[in-house]
């Protein structure tokens, strides 16, 4: 295996008759290279969460065929495989264990772990072959009613008021969410919708993943602003980080305004 600084992600040699097994969070992914084809099989295993992802040259670990299998055929077998972590392709709904109430004209900063997605591609083509979550996510709906809203993911994420407890999980991305209540009414947070597709993913030298900080400002009952800050979560300098995956959807340089119900629940 040829990698950069022994990382579990990146570009790797993938010659014929090679087999890799990747474990990250709950997902176990096997990749097998055969003449003119790649076989990729994966399933989510809930035994223990692999917080230190790994990629190893192993024999098959599945006792029976995995629940999800894909075969990709090529006229000319690619020599290398690209494994890239990414963030979710839909907003992720984060729910505190106990709802949080923010007093008028107060501010709070929460740290949230977002599950990672894995993108598998051949280095010879830009086409992504697989784009899967590392944890089994549940669909959810986030919106003011059942007619207006957006399909999201509900993930069992933990939120903290301090970055340190979540910074040791290398199978998730840490995001700093700053919430400002600029109205004269109490803001109760049962859940927050994190716009994961609009965030870029960075990695530090220890292999921990980070995103940009986001700021949610509530102005009044119906108006809120979401902005992506130029600052990285946790206050890390950009020079100490490496961009792993750019945002799936570019939000542009301007802030976006959304109804309060589209950001907070």
């Amino acid at each position, binding site marked *: 295996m040829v990698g950069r600084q022994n990382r579990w992600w990146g570009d790797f040699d993938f010659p014929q008759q090679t087999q890799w097994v990747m474990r990250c969070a709950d997902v176990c992914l096997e990749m097998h290279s055969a003449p003119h084809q790649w076989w990729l099989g994966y399933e989510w295993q809930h035994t223990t969460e692999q917080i230190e992802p790994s990629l190893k040259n192993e024999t098959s670990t599945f006792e029976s065929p995995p629940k999800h299998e894909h075969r990709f055929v090529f006229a000319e077998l690619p020599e290398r495989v690209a494994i890239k972590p990414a963030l979710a392709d839909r907003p992720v709904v984060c729910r505190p264990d106990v709802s949080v109430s923010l007093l008028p004209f107060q501010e709070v900063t929460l740290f949230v772990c977002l599950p990672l997605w894995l993108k598998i591609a051949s280095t010879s083509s830009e086409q992504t072959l697989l784009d899967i979550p590392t944890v089994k996510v*549940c*669909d*959810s*709906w*986030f919106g003011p009613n*059942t007619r207006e*809203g957006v*399909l999201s993911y*509900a993930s069992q994420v933990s939120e903290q008021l301090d970055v340190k407890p979540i910074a040791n999980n290398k199978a998730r991305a840490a995001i700093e969410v700053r919430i400002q209540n600029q109205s004269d009414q109490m803001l109760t947070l049962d*859940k927050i919708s994190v716009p994961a597709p609009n965030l870029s993913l960075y990695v530090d030298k220890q292999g921990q993943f980070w995103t940009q900080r986001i700021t949610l400002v509530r102005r009044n009952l119906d108006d809120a602003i979401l902005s992506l800050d130029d600052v990285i979560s946790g206050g890390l300098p950009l020079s100490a980080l490496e961009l792993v995956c750019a945002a799936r959807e570019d939000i542009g340089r301007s802030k976006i305004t959304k109804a309060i119900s589209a950001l907070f629940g």
Partner: protein
Amino acid sequence: MTEWINNIDAAWFMSVFEALIYFIVGLILAKMASRAVRQWSKNRFDTHQQLLMARVASYLILLVFVVMGLNAIGFNLGVLIGAAGVMSVAIGFASQTSASNIISGLFLVAERPFSVGDLIKVGETTGEVLSIDLLSVKLRTFDNLFVRIPNETLIKSEVTTLTRFPIRRIDLSIAVALKEDIKAVRKVLEKVAEANPLCLDEPKPKFVFLGFGDSSLNMQFSVWVKRESFIELKNSIHEEIKEAFDAESIEIPFPHRSLYTGSVTEPFPIRLVSDADSKPENKD
């Protein structure tokens, strides 16, 4: 023949030629206008509306040039308009239904209760909308039948668009034996919904106790799902509930009936017969 040719007025010939030019130019301009309108309306309106607008533009331009051409020939349009007036009364009586369908079609296009590709239910018929035409809407049912529904019928009936909103609710009717613990049953159902990835986390599944039936406790358990996964979840969740009930020994009852002989109940007479007594060779 020569006499006829000699009688042809050069001016008349020129006017016919002029009329032909008008018709040809009209045709070309009508086509160009139709294409331009379609291009302009591409991202603003749906397919059916684009087609309608393009047709209207094309027919209007064609009409103008046809009138100009007829005028060039020297045709008296007043006579035509008069005849059209009389004809329209006759045609109007004859084509009431068709006219009604056309007008209903225009209302449907303007109101947009559904679009091509949507699933709709009209009366007993459920199907995918294949096209919304001038006189009728064409559906394809799930068993691959072609159904034509007049626009007038759609305007007058209740139409349910099953694919209007991104999410739908599945209402499950659950009945358990009278001896079961309602709270325990509720917990089992909520666990099943939580474990199924197709069940939306929000809106939360809803549990409603409907009442005490003759032989059962009746309840409703409603879960939300993405509309694309409706059938898949409907099947899978019933299976999972059955498995969960079996695992927790929760009984799904069959109807029970208790029999009484009257207000002052006498016991039913019962005679016990052993196997030995019932065999003929033993009866001596």
